[in-house]
């Protein structure tokens, strides 16, 4: 039987506010346990939550960016359950009336086609603390630094049909939230994570199959592997005459498998009800207008503009708009060199620069070579001071912090030899030293031209202008 896979994602994006969603405590990552939890975060008797307006602004920004409805009135609700890292015994979230509802985003499929993925809702909520089971023998440590950190939970429609689509969607949201500067997207620190709802159904069937919810997916790779494992498990189960049970499953990246965490019947009754400590969240037109003004150019718009203005391919444009910083870097280089050199700039940013960044595990924001410096290097290729090959050596020196392109070219004497007389003299030498090859060439073995060019370059340490060398060689040999 042919099966169709149905996937929906719930993405938790930690909002990049300075303080927590309902208290003034810092949200900075990595502090000593329980040093960034104030009385409100600790759920002390008598304390009350006060909503952080910045978190609301960020949620509204996201809503506008996905073309969704930003609710004029939304309500915070309490989700009640007991757990040691949940200090109040309830999580403040949004339930019936979320702040963002009904948007969408376009993803690219492998074959280059695009697909629209619906976003059901996005709501504001507070994160819980962390339970540390490993470090305390026979006990559990509780770190409440994360408690009260603002989250935007982004819930998609069940619109994805493969693990690859799910990853493409997650990456798209990841790019978007960083563009909007509402989330740092750091998956290792848990700032961006997701749960996946997965089910399968016979192709052509209208009703959805029974779904399972996969938890603990904190990398793109795990999302893909966990979903693929789960799809296979479900299909095998059904084909063997079994039934998928609605349950929550945990992905174990070490064993690459999912295993049951709790069945639906064991699920908590969260007893949601409106939080009486917080008034309904009201958003008016002037607030939205203000937020609208802060919206940057969005990834898709930037990509299309790059294709049109700079004549880039869809692939190049896509890579160069992968993050706002990358796009800014690229455009800064182009602005210095002029639009006619956009392709050269693209090759260098995507080639040497990205390669070096990857090798060192650095983000574009951490690059040791600024956009102005790279433009300075490329300008020397354009004005024939150095060849593209020499430029790569200069780039390496720049990466190592040896200074600007001009200084390195000067210091290392890498300036290209363009003096025809000087080149001619070396060409003559090479011809004189290789009588056998000259004979063969003249007998018709024209492929030997490359050999002669190589010899000239060797003698000039690669500094001779390759165009002039070619021309002179042909002239003299011909």
């Amino acid at each position: 039987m042919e099966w169709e896979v149905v996937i929906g994602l719930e993405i938790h994006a930690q909002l990049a506010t300075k303080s927590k969603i309902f208290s003034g405590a810092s949200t900075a990552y990595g502090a000593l346990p329980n040093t960034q939890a104030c009385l409100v975060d600790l759920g002390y008797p008598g304390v009350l939550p006060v909503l952080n307006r910045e978190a609301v602004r960020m949620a509204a920004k996201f809503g506008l960016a996905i073309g969704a409805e930003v609710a004029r009135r939304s309500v915070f609700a309490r989700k009640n359950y007991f757990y040691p890292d949940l200090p109040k015994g309830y999580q403040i979230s949004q339930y019936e009336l979320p702040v963002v509802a009904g948007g969408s985003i376009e993803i690219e499929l492998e074959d280059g086609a695009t697909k629209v993925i619906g976003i059901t809702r996005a709501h504001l909520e507070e994160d819980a603390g962390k339970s540390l089971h490993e470090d305390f023998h026979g006990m559990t440590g509780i770190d409440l630094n994360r408690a009260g950190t603002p989250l935007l939970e982004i819930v998609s429609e069940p619109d994805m049909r493969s693990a690859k689509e799910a990853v493409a969607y997650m990456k798209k949201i990841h790019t978007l939230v960083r563009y909007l500067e509402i989330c740092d997207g750091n998956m290792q620190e848990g700032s961006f994570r997701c749960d996946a709802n997965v089910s399968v159904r016979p192709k052509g069937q209208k009703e959805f199959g029974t779904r399972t919810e996969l938890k603990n997916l904190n990398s793109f790779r795990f999302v893909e592997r966990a979903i693929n494992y789960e799809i296979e498990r479900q299909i095998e189960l059904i084909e063997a005459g079994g039934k998928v049970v609605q349950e929550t499953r945990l992905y174990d990246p070490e064993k690459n498998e999912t295993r049951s965490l709790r069945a639906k019947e064991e699920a908590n009754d969260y007893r949601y009800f409106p939080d009486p400590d917080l008034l309904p969240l009201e958003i008016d037109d002037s607030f939205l207008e203000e937020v609208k003004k802060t919206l940057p150019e969005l990834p898709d718009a930037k990509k299309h503009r790059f294709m049109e203005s700079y004549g880039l391919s869809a692939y190049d444009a896509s890579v160069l708009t992968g993050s706002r910083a990358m796009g800014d870097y690229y455009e800064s280089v182009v602005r210095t060199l002029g639009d006619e050199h956009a392709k050269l700039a693209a090759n260098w940013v995507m080639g040497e620069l990205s390669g070096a960044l990857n090798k060192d595990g650095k983000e574009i924001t951490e690059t040791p070579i600024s956009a102005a410096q790279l433009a300075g290097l490329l300008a020397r290729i354009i004005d024939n001071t150095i060849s593209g090959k020499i430029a790569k050596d200069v780039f390496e020196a720049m990466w190592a912090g040896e200074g600007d392109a001009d200084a390195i070219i000067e210091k290392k004497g890498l300036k290209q030899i363009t003096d025809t007389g000087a080149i001619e003299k070396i060409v003559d030498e090479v011809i004189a030293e290789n009588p056998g090859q000259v004979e063969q060439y003249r007998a018709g073995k024209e492929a030997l031209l490359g050999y002669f060019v190589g010899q000239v370059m060797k003698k000039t340490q690669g500094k001779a202008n390759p165009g002039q060398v070619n021309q002179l060689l042909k002239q003299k040999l011909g």
Partner: protein
Amino acid sequence: MHTKTIAELSRMLAAGETSSEELTRHYLERIRAHADLNAFITVTEEEALAEARRADALRRKGEAGPLAGIPIAQKDIFCTDGVKTTCASKMLENFISPYDATVVERMKRAGMVMLGKTNMDEFAMGSSNETSYFGPVKNPWDKTRVPGGSSGGSSAAMAARLAAATTGTDTGGSIRQPAALTNTTGLKPTYGRVSRYGMIAFASSLDQAGTITATAEDAAMLLNVIAGFDERDSTSVDKPVPDYTATLNDDIAGLVIGVPKEFFDDGLDPRVAECVREALKVYERLGAKIVDVSLPNLGLSVPTYYVVAPAECSSNLSRFDGVRFGYRCENPTSLEDLYKRSRGEGFGAEVKRRIMTGTYVLSAGYYDAYYLKAQKTRELIKEDFCRAFEKVDVLMGPTTPTAAFGIGEKTDDPITMYLNDIYVNGVNLAGMPGMSIPMGFIDGLPVGLQIIGNYFEEAKMLNFAHRYQRETDWHTKLPKGFE
């Protein structure tokens, strides 16, 4: 000295006729002498004397405000920095708060001296002060009877003049009912008028801090201090605070008093009804107009209250889990065991009853039938009050159906106990301000007149109360042995 009002003490302090230290020593002495009332959970003698000396020093420098040096008692539901805050529960028996509630902070800033923390029903759940882990409080008017609840320690302390004034909280009548049963003046402001920050939550949408005092004038002086917006409480209202003492003596001739006919039901002791009629005559003499009004859905207020309040309390009290503060059971064997036994052993019967009721009404499958329906009936009750205020300036009626009942008399029957709050619950559901003032005695036991105001019209309500207290002397009467 203890027979004086705050207003009088303030004048005496200003004139140098007494000092805050002398006053404080006097009240501390009375607290010791009447310890059998069980009105206090904690007495902060040393801190009180230190604060009194500070207030006296300020006064010598001419920097003291009108309330500086006045000794008061705080209900033990308000968090007090460095002082035990128990909420009358075993759960918080040894809890020392690391911060001050806004109410406490504002009173401190005014220079007031805290004598200690008063007894109350556990987590403010009760109408008789009998649910306190620290034992029942006795009514100074008859020590075999209850002082009302949940602010029973404050009402008893005020009736016995163990402090110049006390604070209370009113979720479903917990200031007005005990004030009525002890011949004191209770004031519950509009929901949102006084910050709830630092007041241990029972039912967040109903809880409101207020005062129990000797007179309406004293209540006005205290409200001047505690009222106002607090950015730490999102439900507090950003509205200017008038000088509540400025309009106390305003003429009430021509103003309209509405008397809801639903207050005069079968459960009302006819002698209480007679007292209300007598009180209304006083107002008629002052030129006020009395009209009949109807609050047709008032009968729904007790059932509505006992869905809304437990629902919120079941969630509010989840934080008492034995993990971070408060009572923890001995040798827990697992997380579940820790939760079950810490909460099972730390909470008293009434608190557990309400947590269970609240958990039930919020559960999947019951939410619509109970919680959602209660929200709708709450809206109907509120509309009734709002409609009445289109035609009247204040509403008046009895605070309680009867005078104080005996200790132990109603503890086995929670429903009968709940019905004691039939006239007061509705005001909390509507969020309006209410008062109870002394209006006479039945067989030597005091009863109270309830005055209800429109939203944020505390000044008008206090004006009515004060004009009545100028014409009558009920509020000056003290129980035997406490004069």
